[in-house]
């Protein structure tokens, strides 16, 4: 694994090094960063959390070792136009998450199933209280592709502050890595954590 050694450097130099290394790291890959400064460590942790970047750390003899993994394909960075919306009100969220496990809603006729799923996603946007998060796994990831009929609605939900977590294993299993149009690639640990920490799971 690549090691970025920022020992002896003061804030914000370690952060600059971390950001540079993140940009040079492929999605799914990790690198290790060393710092011997408490403030730098605190600020790095805060920055990585704020930017949904997964990391683990250990400390020995005054040196912190951070293993930083780039999970996202930087979906957010590629859509600059999303940052141009002038007026976005702040939306309330309810105490529930939505888990999407299929590209269809309910069992029965396939075409009807697709239509119902589309209507479901559109309807969520109009709820008084939005979901805390939306999780997509197995065939559920298929409705988050760029060509999905509901991709615009999902992007709107994301802009309204709803985090969309996509099972990275599922995305690569269905070879969709290049066609994902919203959300953050996530791992099973995070998905399980989100599902167990929320009281109410809504599954279409």
């Amino acid at each position: 694994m690549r090691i970025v050694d920022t020992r002896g450097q003061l804030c914000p130099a370690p952060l600059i090094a971390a950001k540079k290394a993140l940009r040079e790291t492929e999605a799914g890959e990790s690198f290790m960063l060393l710092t011997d400064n408490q403030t730098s460590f605190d600020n790095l942790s805060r920055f990585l959390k704020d930017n949904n970047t997964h990391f683990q750390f250990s400390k020995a003899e005054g040196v912190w070792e951070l293993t930083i993994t780039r999970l996202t394909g930087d979906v957010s960075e590629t859509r600059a136009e999303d940052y141009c919306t002038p007026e976005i009100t702040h939306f309330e969220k309810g105490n529930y998450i939505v888990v999407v496990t299929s590209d269809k809603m309910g069992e029965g006729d396939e075409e009807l199933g697709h239509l119902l799923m589309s209507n479901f996603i559109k309807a969520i946007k109009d709820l008084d209280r939005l979901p805390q998060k939306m999780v997509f796994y197995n065939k559920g990831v298929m409705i988050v592709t760029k060509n999905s009929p509901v991709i615009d609605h999902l992007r709107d939900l994301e802009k309204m502050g709803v985090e969309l977590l996509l099972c990275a294993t599922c995305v690569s299993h269905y070879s969709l890595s290049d066609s994902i149009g919203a959300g953050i690639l996530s791992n099973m640990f995070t998905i399980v954590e989100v599902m167990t920490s929320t009281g109410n799971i809504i599954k279409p």
Partner: protein
Amino acid sequence: MKVDLLKMVEYGGCSAKISPKQLEEILKYLPLPKDPNILVDIDTQDDAGVYRINDELALVLTTDFFPPVCSDPYEFGQIAAANSISDVYAMGGDPVLALNIMMFPADRLPMEAYAEILKGGFDKATEAGVRIIGGHTIDDFPPKYGLAVVGYVHPKRIIANTGAKPGDYLILTKPLGTGIIMAGQRLGISTDGDVAEAKSLMKQLNNTGAGVMKKYSIRGATDITGFGLAGHALKMAKASRVSLNIEMKKIPLIGSTYKLVDEGCIPGASFRNLEYAEKDFSFSPDLDYNLKMVAFDAQTSGGLLICAPDDKTEQILTDLKDVGLTESSLIGQVTEQKEKLIYMYN
């Protein structure tokens, strides 16, 4: 011998302030003096204290000092003095007298540097019409410099954090980014042009902006220093019992500030300020993270944040530009108090 003051400090300028969170904890245990003549004290989170002498006159008292924010001693003196005097302008006062406050490592720096810092302070004070009539120096490392300033204000014309009214527009008179640009300079990633612009902004007195505030009888304003735009806006919202909407994209930034932040050049002070303030903030879900961190960037000798009444906002902006504050911008609005105190948008 060429002296580089920046080599001596981790945090320069207003970045060196103690964390606002810690400060608040400590001040809780310090009783405030009770006296009807104290018109403004720390209770309203203001920039300076104001003490009434009679119906026509009150004194504005303030002090500020910090470690070097730039390499050149003379420029450091100018910037520190402009920053110290700024608090008087922000309160609507006229600065009159000052004392030097200096800490200087006599065994580690040539005495010429000491003289240069004082000369810079003296020249800036003279420009502001302030007479420096004394001071105090301690042998200490790293060097630190600033002024204790006294100004006059009419007791009925004080401008304070308490004066923001729902419906007012927010005007900021200088671009943001001094903390980021100067941190970048230390790492060798800021351009010379950006550093020159940042220094010239830090040296700029807030007297012209204060003149415009007086002309329009403004009652609510603050100057932006170590707690960043976000931190000082929050103090104003608290003191005035209102909420503020701030639109980050409307705020001019110095040169390549945005690019530096995007590369990760976020000074430690920004994180300290964020940690203190964020519980009172609502960040729009699509808020650009870089712009958010710019809002928390500690400014040294920053601009004035002015609450302008709706019907005068356009004239005030025109006047500010006419007096040379060409990057003055309308950056948000005051509303009735809501669940959060600051609502920040792109």
